[in-house]
């Protein structure tokens, strides 16, 4: 081994704690990159593989009833490669040991669970027999959440008929990766699931011999989706079509896409910020670290080593640190990514998880981290390598201090000897001090931008579950019922107030811009829901016109007073122009609202209710549930409190898991910066500090110089860091917002406080570790050594 290589290894060992701190900063940034990119790519790959293997359809449509023969006609349309028809039927399940009614969607499949599209994948057991009455495959997550096993019998009400269902298998399909009951905001596997039954058996029980209620299509390469949708709507209109739609409006697909959009936004916003902060820090820290090697570099030059050889030596030093950082980061990122993918497997119904870290991702992390380290090292070594050996070997000339504004400030503040030493040292190297402070500020900004996410999610929960929703329960009905049904519900135990809701699917159009959505009809004088406008004020439901969520209004490019064309996708398929009466603030989905009367005009079938909102006496909740379970009109029940808990859980497990990792990484960066800055300040001033000890200053007094300088740099970083945090935070919140879910940027004041406290604690801990070196100062050496 060459001596210089040996020196490299020894130097790394000598400076191990500083090298480790730098490597950890690089590791944190690389881990963020690897974690975000690999999870995004893996989820996307898993989804694509599953879609391909199980032939997820491209276009979907539901209707009341059509003869099976229509499938062939549709299959012959231009652009359609395969068409699949099936029966879809909502059913209720009576689970004896629970008071809540369970809902399920039952789908027809061919013999043994086969189908041409949206293929059922049997995880356990077997597919249902084509004719066997009551044989079903249960959706895997629904089965797990409710403890259903193969061989169990479920008591169901299908199309008004009581029927026992025997579970013959557990399975999953690509069109129900995310299964959510209609009208719900959140998936709840304990209350809603999917079942598959043999086609002939389901035809018999629903009285739909050789009939279907739903069609899915696979398009060929040349197909234009919009054109196929148009033709499909035309063909199916006489059959009560609710309008065909592509994958973008398919709820399960939309959830996955939403997750992918958020992941992609995170992958493309967080890691670049982390990496640029880390690179900047590595640049400063490594540069300063190498400048402290001045006399050693001079000695090497005196021995005859060329500037190039010395430069290479120190660049290697930087690269070894960067390499170690990247290896740690990639390993950590890959491990955490794998863990997060496991979480996705719990939330989404995927049959397999395809997790991998691509070499490209590792390459990006390695190249960026090494570039930062090299740049920092080069800056440090260049300034020294240019000196003649004699000059380099001699200590740097004493710094020339001059009386300036700091001096005057010192006089005003009566800073004393130690105070003057601290402030003048900072002022003597304003750029260096500013860079260090800037580095801490960036790390603080990073930490804040991550911490403020929980404020954003709290705002979503607060806005939706507390300010907008006032009901305790939401009851979905099997089919629209007349308002008289309300009186029946008042008779149920514990019901204090009932309000009807009527939802209708519609396409809203403004010129070329169109969005498919649901319009929810509410009574204008209702009290179980609130509309909150963009300024946060509660508003009454306008009697006429549409109320749009802000995001929907933005997409349609309409404002209050503009007219929107509503194409109703059910009933008489009316087309009505309605003015926008109000725009409200909503973070989830893109929905529209109108008065019950307006919705009745749209549907043209009188003012029915598809859903009832209830205010109840909590003490009688179980009695009410039992009563609802035995009410034939009820399809399902959701409770605001349990939905809120589920929603928080989902956020905790998805976004907050990421954010916890990012918080830890940000903290590592803060520690890395402060620790290294403190170490460098210490090595630059060790001589002075030891002199003071010789003169009779105590360790505490001497330590206060070191800590004082760091404290000033950190305190100066606090306001700047909050500004960075505001900028990073608003940018990231904007980026992770999607059609389905918008992340508001509404940081609480306490979050600024928490971020600052975390930075102060991390800084204090790092500074104290370095401050302990004051205890080991070699006073004797000072007597002999030149400054």
């Amino acid at each position, binding site marked *: 081994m060459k001596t210089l290589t040996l020196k490299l290894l020894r130097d790394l060992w000598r400076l191990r704690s500083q090298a480790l701190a730098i490597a950890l900063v690089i590791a944190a940034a690389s881990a963020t990159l690897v974690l975000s990119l690999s999870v995004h790519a893996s989820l996307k790959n898993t989804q694509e593989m599953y879609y391909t293997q199980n032939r997820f359809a491209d276009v979907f449509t539901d209707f009341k009833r059509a003869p099976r023969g229509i499938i062939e006609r549709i299959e012959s349309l231009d652009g359609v490669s395969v068409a699949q028809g099936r029966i879809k039927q909502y059913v209720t399940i009576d689970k004896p040991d629970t008071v809540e009614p369970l809902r399920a969607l039952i789908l027809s499949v061919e013999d043994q669970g086969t189908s041409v599209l949206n293929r059922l994948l049997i995880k356990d057991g077997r597919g249902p027999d084509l004719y066997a009455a009551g044989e079903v495959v249960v959706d895997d997550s629904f089965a797990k959440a409710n403890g259903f096993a193969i061989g169990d019998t479920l008591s169901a009400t299908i199309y008004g008929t009581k029927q026992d269902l025997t579970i013959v298998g557990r399975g999953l399909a690509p069109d129900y990766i995310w299964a959510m009951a209609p009208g719900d905001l959140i998936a709840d596997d304990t209350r809603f699931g999917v079942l598959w039954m043999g086609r002939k058996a389901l035809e018999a029980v629903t009285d739909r011999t050789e009939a279907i209620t739903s069609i899915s299509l696979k398009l060929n390469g040349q197909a234009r989706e919009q054109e196929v949708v148009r033709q499909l709507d035309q063909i199916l209109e006489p059959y009560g079509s609710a309008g065909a739609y592509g994958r973008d409006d398919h709820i399960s697909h939309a959830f996955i896409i939403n997750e992918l959009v958020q992941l992609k936004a995170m992958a493309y916003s967080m890691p670049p910020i982390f990496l640029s902060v880390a690179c900047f820090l590595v640049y400063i820290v490594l540069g300063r670290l190498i400048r402290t090697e001045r006399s050693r570099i001079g000695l090497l030059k005196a021995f005859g080593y060329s500037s190039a050889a010395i430069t290479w030596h120190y660049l290697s030093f930087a690269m070894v640190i960067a390499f170690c950082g990247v290896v740690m980061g990639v390993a950590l990122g890959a491990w955490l990514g794998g863990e997060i993918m496991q979480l996705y497997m719990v939330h989404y119904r995927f049959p397999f998880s395809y997790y991998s870290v691509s070499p490209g991702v590792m390459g990006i992390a390695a190249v960026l981290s090494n570039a930062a380290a090299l740049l920092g090292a080069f800056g440090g070594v260049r300034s020294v390598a240019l000196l003649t050996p004699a000059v380099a070997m001699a200590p740097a*000339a*004493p*710094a*020339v*201090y*001059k*009386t300036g504004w700091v001096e005057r400030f010192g006089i005003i503040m009566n800073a*004393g*000897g130690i105070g*003057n*030493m601290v402030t*003048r*040292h900072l002022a*003597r190297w304003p750029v260096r001090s500013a860079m260090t402070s800037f580095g801490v500020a960036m790390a603080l900004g990073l930490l804040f931008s991550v911490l403020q996410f929980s404020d954003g999610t709290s705002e979503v929960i607060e806005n939706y579950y507390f300010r907008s929703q006032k009901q305790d329960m939401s009851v979905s009905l099997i089919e629209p019922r007349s308002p008289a049904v309300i009186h029946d519900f008042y008779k149920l135990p514990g019901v204090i107030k009932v309000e009807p809701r009527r939802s209708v699917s519609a396409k809203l159009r403004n010129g070329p811009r169109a969005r498919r959505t649901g319009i929810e009809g509410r009574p204008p004088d209702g009290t179980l829901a609130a509309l909150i406008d963009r300024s946060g004020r509660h508003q009454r439901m306008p009697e006429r016109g549409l109320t749009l969520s802000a995001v929907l209004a933005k997409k349609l490019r309409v404002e209050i007073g503009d007219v929107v064309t509503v194409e109703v996708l059910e009933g008489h398929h009316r087309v009505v122009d309605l003015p926008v009466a109000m725009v409200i603030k909503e973070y989830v989905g893109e929905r529209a609202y109108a008065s019950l009367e307006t919705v009745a005009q749209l549907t043209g079938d009188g003012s029915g209710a598809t859903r009832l909102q209830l205010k109840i006496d909590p003490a009688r909740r179980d009695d009410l549930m039992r009563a609802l379970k035995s009410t034939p009109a009820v399809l399902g029940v959701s409770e605001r409190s349990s939905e809120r808990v589920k929603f928080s859980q989902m956020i905790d497990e998805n976004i907050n898991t990421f954010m916890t990792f990012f918080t830890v990484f940000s903290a590592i960066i803060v520690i890395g910066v402060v620790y290294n800055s403190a170490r460098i300040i210490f090595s630059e001033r060790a*001589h*002075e500090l030891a*002199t*003071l*000890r*010789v*003169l*009779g*200053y*105590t*360790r505490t*007094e001497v330590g206060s110089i070191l800590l004082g300088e760091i404290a000033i740099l950190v305190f100066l970083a606090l306001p700047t860091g909050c500004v960075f945090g505001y900028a990073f935070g608003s940018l990231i919140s904007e980026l992770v917002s999607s059609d389905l879910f918008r992340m508001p940027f509404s940081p609480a004041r306490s979050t600024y406080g928490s971020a600052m406290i975390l930075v102060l604690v991390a800084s204090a801990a790092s500074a104290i570790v370095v401050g302990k070196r004051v205890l080991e100062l070699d*006073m*004797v050496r*000072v*007597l*002999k*050594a*030149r*400054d």
Partner: protein
Amino acid sequence: MTVSMDFQARDLHKQYGEGAAAVHALRGLSFDINAGEVLVFLGPSGSGKSTLLNIIGGLDRASSGALDFRGQDLMALSDTALTRYRRRNIGFVFQFYNLIPSLTAAENVRLVTDIAADPLPAQDVLAQVGLSGRTSHYPAQLSGGEQQRVAVARAIAKRPDILLCDEPTGALDSQTGITVLEVLAQANRAYGTTLIIITHNSGIGAMADRVFHFLDGDIARIEHNDTRIAPTEINW
């Protein structure tokens, strides 16, 4: 007349390392140092003079033996007590000045007067060393001789009992060196400060009451001067 005693050393040993690798820096020194005395330590490098100075100054501890300062056992003092001892009793002057570059001449002196019990005013001491016009200059703006005079002013400003000078003229030319020695001698005369100077320059020995000649970690001999000469008369 009774002469008060500052230091009493008995069988002082200082050893670095253990076993075969052990280095004996001091090999059983015994001596007394009287208050107000001027001592010069002479001897080749590695003979033990700096080690002894460090032990006397409370920067290091002897491995064995006894060292009393005015009846107080220095060997028994804790680190904190040693810091207090340095703070109250000891003034240091170093070969390379060891001034704080970020503080002016006056502030460097005040660094010590701030923590001393009964110090002299910084301006007065600087005037005493002939630097009244340079008090607000930073070290980088002063010559080597001026820097060393600031260092001496810093050492004497707190009126220490003992002034320890390790090669105070080592980095200076003869004229500047003599000026510095004059300031030290004046402090000895004016305040009765015990002055111990380490030097390689045997001529400086003539300004001392006694000269300790060091060799291989021991005091080879002690030379008594009946009369001390003034620094200006030193044969450099």
